[in-house]
């Protein structure tokens, strides 16, 4: 009885996936693999340079120093988390995955809560409300621009933040893409007069607090985000439910 039990354990151990994989991996390892380079030192040197450059910029202007710091932070965070807005919209279509979609929704929810607090705080003190520069007219230019942007980001393999992140990672494709990104932006700047005249100047700026009040605005927004989150979650699991 004991022998059978031991034999069973031994058989199961030999059949476990990890041992099967490590045998195939050891055969791959025996074929020459180039040694992995450690880049930690280069990273630390760059860190020192980043800090030094930040101090230098701050002596020119505290604002510029802050823009440098937040840029570094955003780039670092995006890269460490592989946060990709392009994938948040492309993956539900191409692979059925909504993990990034849901992550973006969480980011929107948290940032909205923070921003509404800041805006409200300024508003009740009678100070100018920060961030209002991002409340832009809604017009056909918004529709067309967003649509073109959506197509472009999927083709180019990265949106605006994703492109910057991938340049930092060493992707030649995004280094090429940003050149044409700039050209496209410049070309549109040239056409801005036409867009403004025909569409943008007629477009309303709609700030949710002006429609729903402060509490109403954040509630509506968070409820809407929650609904989208549930839909995204359902989409991810739709095959499992069948």
């Amino acid at each position: 009885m004991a022998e059978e039990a031991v034999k069973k354990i031994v058989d199961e151990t030999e059949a476990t996936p990890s041992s099967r994989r490590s045998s195939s991996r050891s055969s791959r390892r025996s074929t020459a693999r180039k040694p992995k380079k450690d880049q930690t030192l280069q990273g630390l040197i760059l860190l020192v340079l980043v800090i030094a450059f930040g101090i230098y910029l701050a002596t020119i202007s505290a604002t510029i120093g802050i823009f440098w710091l937040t840029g570094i932070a955003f780039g670092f965070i995006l890269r460490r988390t592989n946060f990709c807005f392009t994938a948040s919209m492309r993956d539900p279509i191409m692979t059925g995955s909504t993990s990034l979609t849901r992550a973006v929704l969480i980011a929107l929810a948290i940032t909205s809560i923070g921003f509404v607090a800041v805006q409200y705080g300024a508003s009740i003190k009678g100070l100018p409300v920060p961030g209002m520069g991002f409340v832009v007219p809604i017009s056909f230019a918004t529709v067309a621009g967003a649509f073109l942007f959506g197509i472009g980001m999927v083709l180019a393999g990265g949106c605006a933040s994703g492109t910057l992140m991938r340049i930092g990672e060493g992707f030649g494709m995004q280094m090429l893409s940003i050149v044409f990104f700039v050209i496209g932006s410049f070309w549109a700047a040239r056409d801005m007069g036409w867009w403004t005249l025909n569409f943008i100047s007629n477009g309303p700026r709609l700030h949710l607090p002006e429609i729903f009040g402060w509490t109403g605005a954040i509630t509506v927004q968070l409820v809407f985000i929650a609904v989208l989150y549930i839909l995204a979650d359902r989409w991810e699991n739709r095959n499992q439910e069948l």
Partner: protein
Amino acid sequence: MAEFELDCLGEACPIPLVKTEKKMQELDVGDTLIVMIDHSCALKNVPEWARKNNYDVEVEEVGESEWEIFIDKTA
């Protein structure tokens, strides 16, 4: 228990995942697919897809920005 290799080096996202999905359909149960990637987005989305389909996944870093993803078609 066959092993197949899928070279996705140099591919832009989401090509590695799309190719992996297609290739896995060709495999028999018990086979292993080794996907070679150098794109960090595939590092997350390929294993995620594999786990969602209840395949066994292991990732091995084989160089700077180079990984091999071992997917066992367990079902």
